[in-house]
């Protein structure tokens, strides 16, 4: 049984087995003999040896990589104007957190687009900043939870009054989504609120408190 190394960053010297190569080989070894016994599947049963994956990578040699210069992007964030140099592969979340210093957009699902904790508002739309490229935000108006709080929007007090958070990690994402809903629909029903917040996950299970908070904020906005 090959010895499993704990770290994936094992040197590919002869005799050492990385976790990556172990799993690749294990997957192939399981696949071929099992398939050989299944009738009627064309092109599978004839495999006499395990199918080869892509050839193992050669160690990289020093290469000149053609990269374009950084792009310059002008955008507005929470009402303030910014002119920033951005790398083409940066996400908007990276730009907000690391360049501008607004740390409310979070990273929970690792960039799968599956949690909503990175939600910010771009040109009125609640979007996932982890899947938005910073270099595509030229001319955009971006709102984050910091800006929403600073503006005195009633959604913040409504979240507090209705205990719609526990650890607070998901809260900025929820706040942005809720604010975007209220901008578009000043009289949401509870079903509208649930629907709109369906892309925001909460590990502390605060879910039931969110629709009342949104409806309270809607009532406050109507008063103003």
């Amino acid at each position, binding site marked *: 049984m090959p010895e499993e190394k704990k770290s994936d960053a094992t040197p590919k010297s002869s005799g050492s087995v990385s976790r*990556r190569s172990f*799993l*690749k080989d294990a*997957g192939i070894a*399981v*696949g*071929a003999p*099992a*398939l050989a016994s*299944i009738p009627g*599947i*064309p*092109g*599978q049963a004839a*495999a006499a040896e395990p*199918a*080869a*994956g*892509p050839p193992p990578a050669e160690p990289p040699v020093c290469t000149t990589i*053609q*990269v*374009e210069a950084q*792009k310059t992007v002008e955008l507005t964030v929470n009402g303030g104007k910014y002119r920033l140099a951005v*790398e*083409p*592969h940066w*996400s908007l979340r*990276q730009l907000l957190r690391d360049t501008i210093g607004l740390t409310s957009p979070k*990273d929970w699902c*690792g*960039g*799968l*687009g*599956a949690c*909503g904790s990175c*939600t910010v508002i771009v040109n009125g*739309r*609640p*979007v*996932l900043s982890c*899947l*938005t*490229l910073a*270099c*595509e935000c030229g001319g955009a108006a971006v709102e984050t939870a910091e800006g929403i709080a600073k503006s005195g929007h009633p959604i913040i007090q409504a979240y507090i009054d209705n205990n719609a958070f526990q650890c607070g990690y998901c809260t900025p994402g929820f706040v942005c*989504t809720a604010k975007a809903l209220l901008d578009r629909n000043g009289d949401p029903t509870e079903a509208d609120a649930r*629907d*709109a*917040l*369906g*892309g925001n*996950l909460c590990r502390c299970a605060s879910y039931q408190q969110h629709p009342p908070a949104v409806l309270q904020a809607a009532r406050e906005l109507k008063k103003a």
Partner: protein
Amino acid sequence: MKTIRRFNHVDAHTVEEAASILRGGGASALSGGTDLLGTLRFEVLPEYPETVVNLKTIPGLDFIKEDAAGLRIGATTRLEDIARSETVRARYGALAEAAHRSASPHIREMGTLAGNICQLTRCWYFRLPDNRFHCIRKGGTQCFAVSGDNRYHSIFGAIRSCFAVNPSDTAPALVALGARIQTDRRLIDAGEFWDMAVPGSTVLAPDEIVTEIQIPRPDAGSKSAFLKFAIRKSIDFPIVNCAVAAHGGSARICLNAVYNKPWRATAAEESIRGKAITEESADAAGAAAVETARALPGDRNTWKIQIARTLVKRALLACA
């Protein structure tokens, strides 16, 4: 958390410019980004593009228009705009509902219709980071799901040995509504648009650009419906979905997430032809729809057969 690896980014300003960049090789087309950027961050595919070409900067591809001939939706139109459109909801209900049930509200604000119909499969062997399973869809020689955990995989067999399913919600609605996809070089019937490709899900050439989707105006009295089965009400991809468009004594019925491409349930359509849609006739059509369905080795996806049968029945009844 894994940072996305570097790429160059070009804003295309015409369709020809975008096609030319794709023709050059080493480039990927970027629309809403909710599929592509995930594949790049997790290095799902064996090759990483040097350049990403942004299609959203091409003017004139973001629109919803209706005329006497029917509905035209531009390729880069957001799913949420389609879901909210009064025009689409009034006369092309299956598509509005399918767009509304896609993904999550945020992904619908970013994702485009063309991107949704071109998206890659969600098979978890295919999607494991770092191309851990170099399967048939990546240029390899085998399917790992057919002998592995295939609980979400095809109930109607494979296309060229790939047992993964197509995950789009809008696709079956477009098939049921008789849509056509306009690219920069041809007009393709929805029924011919999807296929097993490496790694893609369509018949598009690597440099071919979708420009709009056309749906013929339905006859007066037509009805359409879309149903989706998933564990959660939001975010989840479909386990099975079904779209029906019915008029008079005939219906077009399309299932998805049950096969490598959207599955036109022709046996169910035959079963219901000329009949009023009732509990009995819809039930019979549901049974006909899955008559040729088979669980994969291991019997882990038998459950999908019952769900497909029930969705066909309920979608038909919604059009009664």
